[in-house]
């Protein structure tokens, strides 16, 4: 039997550059060039370390959590409050139980993160509250809980716990390895594990995923649990970096993670987008705010510009989708 060639194979096209997943790196490069031209301080070792390691790792890990939730067809408004709560919890544990094993603290943080993810899953998947509302409620709940515990930041996290952010292994910062490890595992899950395929399927069309035999609700619950644990890993890093935690440590993270995801080509309607793209989005956001700082532009104006970027990114991609 002969095989007929009816359908031409896929070809490379220039259009690929403007695909969300690639376009973000185009913008990234452009932004770097602008930075190099506009400030002599940008390309100093100190500043680069600041931008790529200190500023972006925390946000990157939380963004991974957000992206998982968005791909599954939901959204998570509670990540900011969760980061605040978890860093505060870490600092509080060290303050109230001097000499506590740092690994025990990390384990408690992860357990607490899973609990928050579980709560979000319960609200949106079991009680079927739309995720925006459900996680918004979680956010308020968590923020209230923090203020019940403390109104001011708690410092004094011991050196042993701070090694994560400070220590270098053979010249490479440990926190960078920490991030790569987390990113690698999540990427493996999403790209190479059947869970990832199911995650995209559920977010793309939960009805079709269901009639294909996928346990839709279970996939969504796993996504929330996974996101919860990722938020704890971010909180562990942030507590280690700032040597403390407080009620506002994670404020703004819900918006920043969503913005980064959208800039990185993750579709807010679910089922579309890559982890790497979203990390590109994080880098664009951090470099952008670094540039603003170097140029001495006030943080209020930065906030305003961030809003504008979000509008431009969303309208750009929704226009592309309509074409």
């Amino acid at each position, binding site marked *: 039997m002969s095989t007929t060639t009816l359908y031409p194979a896929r070809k490379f096209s220039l259009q690929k550059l403007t695909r969300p997943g690639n376009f973000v790196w185009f913008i990234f490069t452009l932004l770097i060039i602008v930075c190099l031209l506009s400030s002599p301080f940008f390309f100093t070792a100190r500043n680069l370390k600041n931008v790529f390691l200190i500023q972006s790792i925390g946000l990157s890990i939380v963004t991974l959590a957000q992206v998982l939730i968005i791909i599954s067809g939901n959204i998570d408004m509670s990540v900011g409050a969760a980061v605040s709560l978890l860093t505060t919890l870490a600092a509080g544990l060290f303050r109230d139980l001097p000499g506590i094993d740092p690994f025990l603290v990390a384990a408690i943080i992860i357990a607490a993160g899973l609990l928050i993810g579980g709560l979000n899953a319960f609200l949106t998947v079991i009680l079927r509250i739309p995720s925006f509302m459900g996680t918004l409620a979680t956010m308020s709940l968590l923020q209230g809980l923090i203020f019940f515990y403390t109104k001011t930041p708690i410092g004094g996290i011991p050196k042993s716990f701070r090694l994560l952010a400070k220590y270098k292994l053979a010249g490479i910062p440990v926190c960078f390895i920490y991030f790569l490890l987390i990113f690698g595992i999540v990427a493996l899950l999403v790209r*190479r594990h059947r869970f990832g395929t199911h995650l995209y399927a559920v977010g*793309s069309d939960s009805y079709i995923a*269901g009639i*294909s*035999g996928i346990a839709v609700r279970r996939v969504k619950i796993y996504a929330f649990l996974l996101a919860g644990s990722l938020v704890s890993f971010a909180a562990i890093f942030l507590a280690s970096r700032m040597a403390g935690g407080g009620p506002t440590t994670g404020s703004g993270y819900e918006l920043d993670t969503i913005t980064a995801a959208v800039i990185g080509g993750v579709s807010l309607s679910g089922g579309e987008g890559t982890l790497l793209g979203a990390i590109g989005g994080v880098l664009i956001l951090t470099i952008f705010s670094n540039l603003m700082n170097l140029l001495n532009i006030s943080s209020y104006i930065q906030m305003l510009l961030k809003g504008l970027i979000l509008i431009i990114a969303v309208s750009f991609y929704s226009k592309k989708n309509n074409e």
Partner: protein
Amino acid sequence: MTATTPLLEFRKICKSFPGVKALTDVDMSFRKGEVHAIVGENGAGKSTLMKILSGVYQPTSGEVYFNGEQVTIRNPHEAQLMGVSIIFQEFSLIRHLDVVSNIFLNREPTTFLGLKDRSTAVRKAKELFRSMDVDIDVNRNISELSIVEQQLVEIAKALSVTAQVLIMDEPSAPLTDKELKKLFEIIRSLKAKGVTVIYISHMLEEIFEICDRVTVIKDGVVTHTDEVKNMTKDLLVKKMVGRDIDDIYPPLGTAGKDDNLLEVTGLTSTPRINNVTFTLRRGEVLGLAGMVGAGRSEIIKTLIGLNPKDNGCIIFEGSPIENRSIAQAIENGFYYIPSDRKNEGIIADMTIMENTTIASLKEHLQHGIINRKSERLFAGNENKKLRTKTSSLEEQIKNLSGGNQQKVLLARALLTRPKVFCIVEPTRGIDVGAKHEIYKIIRDLCNSGSSVIMVSSELPEVIGMSDRILVMKQGTVAGIIDQSAGRATEEEVLSLAVGHEYSLHAKESN
């Protein structure tokens, strides 16, 4: 299992949706290794029955037996485990995933800890397509494929399961002759392996070519089961429709020859229609016929201001008018019901009452506030007149059957008291009984002095309903047939629509 035990059996299956009884006491049995056709009009309940078998729906009552044992199929996953595989009528592919991922969705070959074995999946997918004798790049996303390719992937997905029962719900619809032949080869080889194939199709020729037995469902009830070799096409049609074709359409109207409601001259909207001239008499149904893309619905869209009018003159009741938007068109006494009921007609989440009054809400305003009492009164009366079947006006319209949704849309239109009423595919996806009622509603509207412009791809419908038929060909008027002296034949209409020659195939692809 003895030879007489059927592989699969339905006993007294009933299924109700809010306001509709889709299936009533369905008994059916399927033998091992047979190709069993299920036929019936749109909305007869074929797809509902198959969704019960594949675990998408649960029956309201009744039992399913598989290999002689009673089974409960709670979800699609259980159906898969049982060995039931289905090619759905609507696509069941994830657009953002590639071909391989779709074929093995939820059955991904894995290495360890659930990690996907991509190379095995790719190899198996390629083998599958090779055995089907088609060439598709398995790494492409579904969103990049044509409809035909998507259907082939759909078939491959169903075949990738070692199934005992394979359901094919309208598998041939998007396929060309060439692929259809391949599909039949596949079915024959499945049959040889002892797989039971349930084949649902509108195309009776296919049933006579490939099927062993046939079951007819009409209005949710099994009316006939027999060996295909004992049936003829005419017999099958009669069993499906259950009534004579002449009883379906109400008698034609008696519109005056010179009583013109609308005169359209030189209507042009590039590139779709060019220099279209016609008149619409008071109280007539003007049917627009022609091939897909000939510009039938474009005339209506240009007339009511949905498409830009590049040229031409519309004279309505003796004076020239312009419709620049739908709102203005309604203001001028026009109304338009599009063919895509689900997306362009109903507002799915709103109630029947809200759907009925939304076009005429202005009349129920008192100082800018909606008078719910008068809204309810009008919506209730109109739906009662059209005999919309529902438990309550507060029911969401999406829970109604297609026929009843269409009646609500007609009620919505009638409340604007249109003089020129335009409707595209008035009975698409509607069962025969409701079709008849909708024809009557349209005819009654004409008898009360309004005029109707109707587009339909079903030729019998155009011929059955229209006082005059305007035939379009490539954006221009090919001819106008007056039916007052007697109804035209399908051949007459077709020969105008395609020029000097036509084939039956051209009609079917319409």
